[in-house]
């Protein structure tokens, strides 16, 4: 437990990270304070929506539903929150898992996804190269497909790093794992991802010039 500012207690934070303003709301929310619940949700839901959009793709029909379910789970699990990380990171992990579970259910049930219809005539009318644009639109869904094939713990680490742009220290706090463990998971996840990507019809064509 650290101290910041006017000597206010600080529940937990990343090394060098911001104070956790939301931690003070937790006891009030768990005691049933509706105002505190509104404040907490207003802060958390935009972050949960962002996680949901990145993991599912912003055109996925259940982006808002996943953010809703994640927020519901966060509130339900606040009683178990022990202040080992920030409330926001506690919520982020729940959102990542909720969204990844939705993707796994999608795969298992082979549920038809609503995808944006790519109108190649429209691209031509705008002077764009339809094939190049089509390849662009196919890359990120392909990355998500490969992530679905990774073991859960590796997929979670790579989602946090690649899709959400978190650093190793941040991932360690979100996942509640030691730094070296996260480094090793990230290295392994990238290796596994790469070996699958090399066999993927869309991803194997990817070239990033230096």
């Amino acid at each position, binding site marked *: 437990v650290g101290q910041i500012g006017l000597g206010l207690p600080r529940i937990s934070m990343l090394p060098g990270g911001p104070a956790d303003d939301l931690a003070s709301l937790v006891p009030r929310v768990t005691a049933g304070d509706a105002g505190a619940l509104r404040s907490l949700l207003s802060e958390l839901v935009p972050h949960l929506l962002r996680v949901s959009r990145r993991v599912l793709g912003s055109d996925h029909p259940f982006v808002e539903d996943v953010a809703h379910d994640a927020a519901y789970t966060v509130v339900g699990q606040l009683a178990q929150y022990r202040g080992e990380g920030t409330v926001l990171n506690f919520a982020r992990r729940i959102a990542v898992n909720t969204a990844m579970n939705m993707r796994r259910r999608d795969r298992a049930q082979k549920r038809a996804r609503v995808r944006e219809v790519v109108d190649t005539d429209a691209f031509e009318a705008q002077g764009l190269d339809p094939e190049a644009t089509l390849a662009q639109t196919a890359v990120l869904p392909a990355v998500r497909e490969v992530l679905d094939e990774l073991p859960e713990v590796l997929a979670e680490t790579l989602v946090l790093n690649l899709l959400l742009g978190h650093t190793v220290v941040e991932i360690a706090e979100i996942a509640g794992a030691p730094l070296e463990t996260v480094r090793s998971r990230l290295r392994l996840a990238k290796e596994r991802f790469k070996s699958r*990507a090399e066999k993927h019809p869309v991803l194997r064509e990817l070239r990033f010039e230096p």
Partner: protein
Amino acid sequence: MKVALEDLSALSRRDELSEPERQRLDVLLQSSADARLFHGLGRRFDAEDPSLPIADAASEAVVDALLNDPRLLSDLQRRGSAKRRTLPRSTWLIAAAALFVASLAGAVIGVQRLRSERASIRAAAALPSVSAPAGRAVGQAVLPAGPVSGPIQEHAAPELSAEPLPTHPTPASAAELLSAAGRARRIGQPKQALELLQTLRSHYPNSPEASASEITLGKLQLETGAVAVALGHFDAYLQRSPSGALTPEALWGRAQALTQLGRSSEAQQSLSQLLQRYPASPYASAARAKLGSAAAGRP
């Protein structure tokens, strides 16, 4: 502290690298195909969904749905009361004594809470590298209290307190500044929100958050009646990000501002554009209703 190689890409995506760190990243990208692959993919995710964790119409809809779900609060209250029932009698006696003591110190605690709420917003803006007037850090600026009326002076220097307040130990990121500004706006502290947005725009001018700040600024100015200034911000966003994640918000805000300025035909054009380009946006039904009532009101 030296940034680890594996974090250079993540920090670069947030526009948080210093010049030497940027050079290290360039060297890494030149020499490693893997680094190029993952950095390039990360950039694509950022480009696909540049939406920021700010309170937009979609998040407000989710929050409303949750708050209107009777199960959520009743579950919480049931859990809270169950927890209270399990406490031993001695705990209640101690709690009663503590409450008595706490009531004597109530005024002091009230003052401290007020200061802490202000400090939490101020903390997000504290960037140690910033030089503030009179040699003080930005984190020492006093947070102006209470609602304001009329346009906000966007270039006014922050007031300074007589009593120095501690600064935040680390720089705030662009996302934290934008989030804190949004919070300040929602709790009725528009001047604070403006200071935070100015800090964001000066420290991270090329970040997506700086672009998104045009929307927050537009909303702030609309709320204080500075409609023409608000219109300028919405137009600036549209010029900067014509197909950005917040374009529906910009078109909606633009229509609101134009309506208030009496330029109804331009407002309708903005609404039509919103409907045409974003028929599934959360603003679509409201835009349709406004266009419908405008058509019905025509002679």
